[in-house]
């Protein structure tokens, strides 16, 4: 049985690798000059390459590791596969409340969980495999790239000339500044999905999206998880209420929460790994079998010889680009994590599309004009789009939020998923929607309705009249809009009544 499993793992992994980094790949003979040379075949690089190729431009795509970047290999795809298993597993004890008790104590087979993850990754890799890219007419080069001038790149010894270039090298996990942690050993998003066994004790350092997602997922799978966050709340980018609901959800699942706490040292001992932590000046220790470091990501700007190309950069913020994604060299653009503050797959893809349009089609698409939704895939999920309340207030925009609690939404009640809310932020005195925050079981889906609404400029009045299916969790969005119209109708009636008195 074990052999069969190992073989399955091996088969899936071999197919996966044959797609993202074929063993016997031969780099193509370079053309005289490419319309577009792209460094990095992650979400931004792939989106740009496919878009440019479909428009009929000659494209060179250079990847030093695997096609697909973080998202496919070590990010969104594997983490969501693990989270899906954790969700299923965690709902089993709750089945009794639905009148469907599970007869036996559910068991978890971690190797099967990981095998499923690898299978899913293999399947999704099909869409952007090296051979598929070649079939699109894209010249795919594997190797490390560096600039050899303002209009040329070197891949090994091969020189590629370009009219325009796009830097899409992404970002990598930030290295720790914790004494002894390097020697003690730790995992990052790049290595956590290689674990062969479920750790009994997992310490997650960092309370950003990935840290929270994996803390909850591994806790649900059966690890004793402690999450250490230096800030007073998780997800510093999100609003307080959303972050607090996440805190309680993690606590409910059994995650041990250490907020306002810093890890200042690490050592290996007989029992595993010992982390020294400090909270408000008080020191203590926690034990772990595995440590996951998730303290943010830094852009990949090293080893590119950017100075040679006249491209300004910063090792912390990445490539310096203007609103049109052009670098300080007007023929070189950047897209994705290497230059954006929002390091999300969808933001990377969107910026890549813009960069291609601006570089090759002489268009003037501005990154500031795009409205990017994002989501943290905990349970409940936390999603946001547009302005935050504090951002609007900093800009002196009077803002008001219309909030509907998920426990007041019929579909949430029937599904037993009543934690969370929908908040729609509007410019006060108008029905213009400035942003939305959603905390719900499937906030990642609901926020996309808000993306459509905001991108098409629909206001609260029109939204209130849009008929939705019933029952649906998206009913919360309509209820928020209807609260707006009801309030305004009442105010008008009040004015009329006062006028007739």
């Amino acid at each position, binding site marked *: 049985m074990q052999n069969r499993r190992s073989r399955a793992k091996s088969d899936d992994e071999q197919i996966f690798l044959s797609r993202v980094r074929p063993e016997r790949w031969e780099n193509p003979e370079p053309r005289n000059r490419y319309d577009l040379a792209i460094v990095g075949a992650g979400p931004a690089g792939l989106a740009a390459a496919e878009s440019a190729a479909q428009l009929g431009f000659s494209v060179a795509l250079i990847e030093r590791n695997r096609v697909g970047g973080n998202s496919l290999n070590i990010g969104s795809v594997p983490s969501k596969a693990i989270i899906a298993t954790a969700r299923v597993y965690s709902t089993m*004890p*709750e089945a*009794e*409340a639905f009148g469907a008790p599970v007869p036996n104590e559910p068991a978890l087979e971690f190797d099967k969980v990981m095998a499923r993850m690898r299978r899913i990754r293999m399947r999704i890799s099909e869409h952007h495999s090296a051979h598929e890219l070649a079939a699109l007419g894209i010249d795919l080069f594997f190797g490390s790239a560096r600039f050899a001038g303002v209009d040329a790149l070197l891949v090994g010894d091969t020189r590629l000339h370009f009219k325009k270039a796009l830097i899409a090298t992404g970002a990598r996990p930030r290295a720790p500044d914790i004494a002894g942690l390097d020697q003690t050993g730790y995992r990052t998003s790049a290595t956590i999905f290689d674990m062969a066994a479920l750790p009994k004790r997992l310490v997650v350092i960092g309370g950003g999206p990935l840290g929270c997602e994996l803390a909850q997922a591994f806790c649900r799978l059966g690890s004793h998880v402690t999450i250490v966050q*230096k*800030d*007073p709340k998780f997800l510093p980018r999100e*609003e*307080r*209420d959303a972050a*607090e*609901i996440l805190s*309680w959800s993690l*606590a*409910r699942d059994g995650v041990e929460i250490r907020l*306002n706490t810093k890890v200042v040292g690490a050592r290996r001992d007989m029992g595993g790994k010992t982390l020294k932590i*400090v909270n*408000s*000046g*008080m020191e203590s220790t926690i034990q772990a079998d595995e440590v996951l470091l998730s303290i943010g990501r830094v852009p990949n700007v090293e080893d590119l010889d950017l100075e040679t190309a006249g491209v300004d950069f910063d090792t912390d913020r990445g490539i310096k680009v203007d609103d049109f994604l052009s670098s300080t060299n007007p023929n070189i653009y950047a897209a994705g994590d290497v230059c954006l503050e929002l390091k999300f797959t969808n933001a990377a893809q969107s910026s890549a599309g813009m960069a291609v349009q601006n570089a090759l089609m002489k268009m003037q698409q501005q990154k500031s004009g795009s409205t990017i939704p994002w989501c943290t895939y905990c349970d409940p999920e936390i999603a946001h789009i547009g302005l935050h*309340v*504090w951002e609007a*207030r*900093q800009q002196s925009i*009077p*803002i*008001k*939020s*219309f*909030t509907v*609690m998920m*426990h*007041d939404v019929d579909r949430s009640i029937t599904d037993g998923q*009543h934690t969370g*809310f929908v*908040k729609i932020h509007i410019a*006060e005195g108008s029905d213009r929607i400035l942003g939305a925050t959603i905390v719900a079981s499937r906030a990642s889906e609901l926020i996309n309705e808000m993306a459509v609404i905001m991108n098409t400029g629909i206001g609260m009045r029109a939204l209130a009249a849009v008929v939705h299916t019933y029952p649906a969790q998206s009913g919360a969005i309509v209820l928020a809009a209807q*609260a*707006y119209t009801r*309030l305004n109708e009442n105010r008008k009636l009040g004015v009329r009544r006062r006028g007739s008195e």
Partner: protein
Amino acid sequence: MGDLGRISDEALIVRLQRAAFSYLSDYANDDTGLVADTSRQGSPCSIAVVGFALSCYPVAVRNGWLSRADAGARTLNILRFFWESTQSDASDATGYKGFYYHFLDMRTGRRVWQCELSLIDTALLIAGVLVVGCFFDRDDEREIRELADALYRRVDWRWAQNGSRGLSQGWKPESGFLHYGWEGYNEAAILYVLGLGSPTFPLTPTAYVTWQLTYQWENLLGRDVLYSGPLFTHLFSHAWIDFRGIRDAFMREKASDYFENTKSAIAIHREYGERNPYGFKAYSRDFWGVTAGDGPNDREVRSRRRDRRFFGYMSRGVPYGPDDGTIAPWGMLATLPFAAEAALAGTRRLLEIYPQVCPEDRFSSGFNPTLRVDAGGWLSEGWYGLDQGLLAMMIENHRTGLIWEIVRHCGYVRDGLKRAGFEGGWL
């Protein structure tokens, strides 16, 4: 409900008010004047409770529970202690830069539990100091006024800004300023007003504006409200400041005021009790009061086919939570100045069904009927000073407006309010 159920509303609230006040007297140290955080054995002093106690001495005088001379002597004892106690950056001092540590040893007045030098708790203490400084206005009460003035002037609010635009929540000698500040509307208005009003080390005007940038104006359960979840956050600053009719820039923009806002918050708490989304026992329009307070401690219980998780002492809120079915039994009555009918209806119903929440006429800090302990629900042991002090003050404000009237005439508070941009009404 016993005989509490048979007496008039006025008799009921006076009796509960006197019992609440008596906590502040019963659990004070005779030498230092410090008042215990809770009635539990070995409890340290909470400086905030001392602030409430000081504010309640004029209440006791007015109601004839203490003679003016007795109240003055007790007040003087406390003020002398705070003036003479150690102010330094030593880890066991009583305070530093005019601020005080959150918890102090009842007997020695030294810092305990490695707690923080607390900005908000110092503000609550100093609010009480200013109340007595205004109330004791006779010639032979001059030392009270002088000490009150000196204590206020000594607080270095500007230092507490640590060179930033905002304000941290505290400081520790071991690690410096806490790296978290004030986010969202809450009980801190009194802190900012006192900090801004200082003639010696005032907060910069940006501090208040910076805090207000984090405010959330929401339409929630059918009402517009400046959101804050726990009930107490809508009450603490109001125990001293009468916010009726005075507005800062934020409230002018919203055509409301903070008093009206508390009324809206109370309505939301009642509405939440009525909707009772998590099916907690007893929740209704007349059973509410989700706030900071004692709780059943961390535990998970399977109850009525649901996994329930309960928490210990913590800040609970409505409607975002956390909510584990625990209410503060004193909470409803403390809203008397804002919603007398609702406060009395809820309190009477609570006392009728669960008379155990008010042992010796003093409300417990927390009660959770969903968690069955023996025959009844879970009940917090003993009493908490903050609850008793707030209740005694709020009842007085409802009955006579005494504290509000005193504070209206406090020049420092008026200056602080004006510097925060408040206008109109009694200002």
